[in-house]
């Protein structure tokens, strides 16, 4: 996976982007099947809620990387239920990131 934060991510108030990202990261937390992944997702959520809005791009990039890792891990273990759930979160994160201008989509 190659994701990057968009340079076009502009600000104004944009508080709602932090909120929506926080909700999606809560989903990621719920989809995490190891303690370490849960903690990583929690710290990303904390960052989304506390870092400046301009940081949401890299939070999204890191969240996608984590979601991707979770998907591969579930695939390797043959856990299709977990994979389905994690892939859905991954998709949500990506769609949101692109539409919010936090990620570039070539």
């Amino acid at each position, binding site marked *: *996976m*190659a*994701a*990057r*934060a*968009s*340079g*076009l*991510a*502009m*600000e*104004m*108030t*944009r*508080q*709602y*982007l*932090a*909120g*929506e990202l*926080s*909700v999606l990261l*809560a989903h990621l937390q719920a989809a995490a099947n190891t303690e370490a992944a849960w903690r990583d997702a929690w*710290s990303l*959520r*904390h*960052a989304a*809620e*506390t*870092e*400046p*809005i*301009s*940081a949401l*791009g*890299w939070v999204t*990039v*890191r969240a*996608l990387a984590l*979601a*991707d890792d979770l*998907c*591969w891990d579930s695939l390797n273990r043959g856990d299709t239920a977990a994979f389905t759930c994690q*892939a859905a979160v*991954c*998709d949500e*994160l*990506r*769609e*949101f990131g*692109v*539409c*919010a*201008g936090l*990620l*570039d*989509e*070539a």
Partner: protein
Amino acid sequence: MTEIKQPQGPGVQTSEAQIAVHWREEEYIPPPPKFVEQANAKDPAIFDRFSEEHFPDCFKEYADLLVWDEPWHTTLDTSKPPFWKWFVGGKLNASYNCVDRHAEATPDKTAIVFVPELESDEHEKISYSELQRRVNEFAAVLRDSVGLKTGDRVTLHMPMVPELAVTMLACARLGVIHSQVFGGFSGIACGHRIADSGSRVLITMDGYYRSGQMQDHKAKADEALEAARQEGQEVDKVLVWRRRDGQYASKTPMADGRDFFVDELLSEHRGATVEPVSMPAEAPLFLMYTSGTTGRPKGCVHSTGGYLAYVAGTSKYYQDIHPDDVYWCMADIGWITGHSYIVYGPLALGTTTVIYEGVPNYPDGGRPWRIAETLGVNIFHTSPTAIRMLRKVSPEEPKKYDYHFKHMTTVGEPIEPEVWRWYHSEVGKGEAAIVDTWWQTENGGFLGSTLPALQPMKPGSCGPGVLGVYPVIYDEDANEVSAGSGKAGNICIRNPWPGIFQGIWGQPDRFVATYYRKYNKDPDSTDWHDWPYFAGDGAVQAADGYFRILGRVDDVINVAGHRLGTKEIESAALTVPEVAEAGAVPVIDDIRGRVVEVYVSLKPGFEPSEALEQKVSAAIDTQIGKIARPKNVWIVPDMPKTRSGKIMRRVIASISNFADVGDVTTLANPEIVESIRHYVQSSKVAKDDVPRELSETEFEEIKKFGGE
């Protein structure tokens, strides 16, 4: 598996000039004649009424939209700048203005339509008289069962349900200051805001629907209370609304003596009436916390009279709300947009406002248009992010539905012309006037927009300053950047306006430092002309006076005229798998003004190497461009951080510039500073790469780098 390709095109633009040409000047689009005919503001004489010559008394026109218990004697008090006071001496109650007066005049008119996320659930129409009953009964609960009184703060952590509006209006009725935290935020984020505001009561809900699933929301209350307790704030009572009558949607047990179901408390107050408390115009109505603050949270204090007048006035003229409209703002009430343009503005004007519980694309991208068709929505208001999402998932969907918007709004971020055009032609079917609005949490209401019947739309530009608001663009040296110059700068507002927040809760110095100090001409002056409001956004102004908003002006490194966002650089560094954390800082350079240096720490198991430094540099080069290539990449064992985990960029910027790092004793890891300083500065000395001594201005820039 997720696949996002390497960026191309506009995402890599960085310079002011490139930004300016990226959204080229667009054509003007006039509002539809049918809209103009019925508009609240269609006589150009309004511009004269709100000209600077008539400031500040022009805002009497907004204040006259409200019912005042006592008239004001001073329109604008500037005696303690920049703590402006509007309509001083006046008294009113926001709840009365949004509920009672309409309940008396039009009791059966629908005030709120609640649209549950599940399409199988019925819409709920709440008339003004029904809203009055609910607000009164809940105000009685707050006053008599909970013991809240005027001036107390109460934190709300509620989803998008009508009970949230009822709760806000019940607080307003008593002069209790509400502080709603976005329902999707974690309990911990809520807890920090509880602690900062000193709330002893939390009002929440057991659950709500999102994407078709009932969410356990009450569980967050326990987290919030624990987070608040760790900051020394105890919460005595938690009031829990139930999403479905007689059911409890949470797995969290109710704490005996602390947690109370609202419906059970309400049963003791059926039919109660609570006299609205007549509040001074400058009394706080609510706190709205901004996110993105690693230090102490920033609670923006909004006033009763000035705020309510401003949102009523801008709702009338810019949203073009008439009492017989059906108005839907698809934002969340947890943000300022929802406070101003779902609850207070529309209800102050006695119209019908829609509250939708869920996400726009559940169960599919046609949902918003079905709602609009079913309810006869004729004014629609949403964000560019939502527009992009709906355009992406179902671009053809709007035309399948028989709805007709006369007016549409975009809010929250700049909208690209091509997205604007889809919004105009597909969502609006070419029939609607669109206002592209610019403003912020701190501002209460719109600052930049076209007046829809009198100023043509121009995709990509928000328009000029709104009525009675006089924006200006300054460069870093406080020189005015002229309209049509094509140069970007810091957009500021030269004058106070009634919706401006009154301060940051409990942090008056921070308020002055953040928003006014930068361009203040005389700290002792009581003349508002000397106190421009620094918005923190960059902008360019076209020759026609329309503004195009570019983004935040902080956290930017200006390399040879190219404005490089630090986060973009850091994001690029973070794509290197070995990198755990990254911080980009400016270094003073006589030729290019500033150059970039990047500090990275590595994930466990990886060792620093020159190859890794080059890998980081190459990643930045590839993703952003050569202009952003760092002069040095420093691999350090850890970053200097605050206790909340924020990288202290000012410390590493000072190290790179051989400047005093200042006080580091409050850092979580102060010992790392000396270790980094020794490593970086000895390497620079060895490479004969020591920057010259900084000027006072440069030193200030470095000292403040990275913000709070």
